[in-house]
């Protein structure tokens, strides 16, 4: 480290094209990371909720389709999945769809690919948590529902799912934090997000430590905010005396 010359003012220097400073680049990257993560999170919650619930139904065909989905997305590395979505899948699209995809501004097609990839990858993980959450609701409650004349759907929507959501909140928080970290894979297809901007800074300024220290701090900051908000929500939704342990 003795050979390294620190230069924190690098962030306020003008970029080569002269229309911004490096700090603007970092902010653009931060926005990219946040937008991608939050939208992918919404996709993951919807798909994860549906698949996880289907995994618990009695019908063996439906539940095995759901578990096939989960295994497919859980067993392949995220980076490989992104590569498949970006390079392989478009080859199988009809010519018109492929042309439409390739002719849209690259930022959109990069975002679309990363959004689907990250959303579905995370949905498989959420599905598993939803399944365990639903299964954690005591069977007696289902029996009680049936005795009261509820249909299976009613039991799911009024008894099992609402409780499952409250039970799995801590696990969902971890997944929410993960999605912010995993969004960094989008850098490999050229999407503008935080870790790509750090790489760019390294290549343009040769100041790797400053760039990575700053983005590390930003990832931490974002995740600390997410954690605090999720903890608040968790407290609110907590079932007294259940799993998370109310005092």
């Amino acid at each position: 480290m003795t050979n390294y010359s620190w230069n924190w003012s690098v962030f306020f220097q003008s970029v080569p094209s002269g229309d911004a400073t490096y700090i603007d680049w970092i902010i653009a990257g931060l926005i990219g990371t946040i937008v991608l993560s939050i939208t992918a999170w919404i996709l993951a919650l919807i798909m994860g909720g549906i698949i996880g619930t289907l995994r618990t139904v009695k019908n063996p065909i439906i539940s095995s389709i759901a578990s096939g989905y989960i295994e497919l997305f859980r067993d392949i590395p995220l980076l490989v999945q992104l590569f498949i979505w970006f390079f392989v899948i478009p080859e199988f699209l009809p010519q018109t769809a492929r042309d439409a995809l390739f002719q849209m501004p690259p930022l959109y097609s990069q975002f679309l690919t990363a959004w689907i990839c990250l959303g579905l990858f995370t949905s498989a993980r959420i599905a598993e948590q939803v399944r365990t959450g639903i299964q954690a609701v005591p069977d007696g409650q289902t029996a009680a529902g049936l005795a009261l004349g509820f249909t299976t759907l009613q039991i799911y929507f009024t008894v099992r799912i609402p409780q499952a959501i409250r039970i799995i909140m801590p696990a969902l928080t971890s997944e929410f934090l993960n999605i912010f970290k995993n969004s960094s894979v989008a850098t490999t297809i050229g999407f503008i997000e935080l870790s790509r901007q750090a790489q760019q800074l390294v290549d343009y300024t040769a100041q790797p430590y400053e760039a990575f220290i700053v983005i590390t701090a930003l990832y931490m900051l974002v995740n600390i905010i997410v954690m605090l908000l999720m903890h608040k929500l968790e407290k609110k939704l907590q079932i007294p005396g259940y799993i998370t342990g109310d005092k």
Partner: protein
Amino acid sequence: MRLLKTSLAVLTISALGLSSVALADSATLNKIKETNTILLGHRESSVPFSYYDNNQNVIGYSQEIEMKIVNAIKAKLNLPDLKTKMLPVTSANRITLLQNGSIDIECGSTTHNKERAQQVGFSNTIFIIGTRLMTKNNSGIKDFPDLAGKNVVTTAGTTSERILQKMDNDKDMNMNIISAKDHGEAFLMLQSGRAVAFMMDDALLFGERAKARNPEDWVVVGKPQSYEAYGCIVRKDDPEFKAIADETIAKLMTSGEINTIYDKWFNKPIPPKNLNLEFPLSEKMQALFKAPNDKPFE
């Protein structure tokens, strides 16, 4: 007994002192001598500069120069059994790995520019490239102005990326600039039709072209937008070590030996697919061979 111990200690200290006087100028040479090992950085897919052949050996134009430098160090330090350790580096980590001592020298396709020169030392220039475009032979793209409104791909963190961005800003060209992770992926984006052109160092474009399924489908076009000098990187403030690299490179060039090496990598079939890059020696390179120097273009 005590006297013996004391005198032994004195002897040891003065011996240590002597040997450190002998080589005190170069921390890198000292380290190489002490460990009998030199740590070399290489690139994994910079065809034809530094890359793997089919047997996972590192080969290439820059690699060959790097080994000449190693031989010069062997001779200088009188270490005929000097061990070499190879470490693959990327454009993102090569400077850090050099500074933290993981490698002693890297010869690949590293452009000498002023930002990098603040962190590391550059040897004499080993290659000069021009930044140009590769496109499909029927794309209708002849030069940079034809890129207006089009998707253009380049590799993240390269000078080409900066030039494209500046060109887009200055001339309001409405280009969509895609930055791929590495040259291979950038070429894949070109081949799949996501971009109509790939801007990069011309020598690397010829290298990517040689890897294509049908090399004859791809052409390198356009007036070079910049020239860049590739150098080997060494630790800064180690002039004695840099001098060995500089002398080795200068001698290769002025003796004419470099012409054989150039021909081998740019005008003859090369691994892994036995394709000929057919990349003629430029005027700038001829001038460099006549007068070796360590000056960047920037």
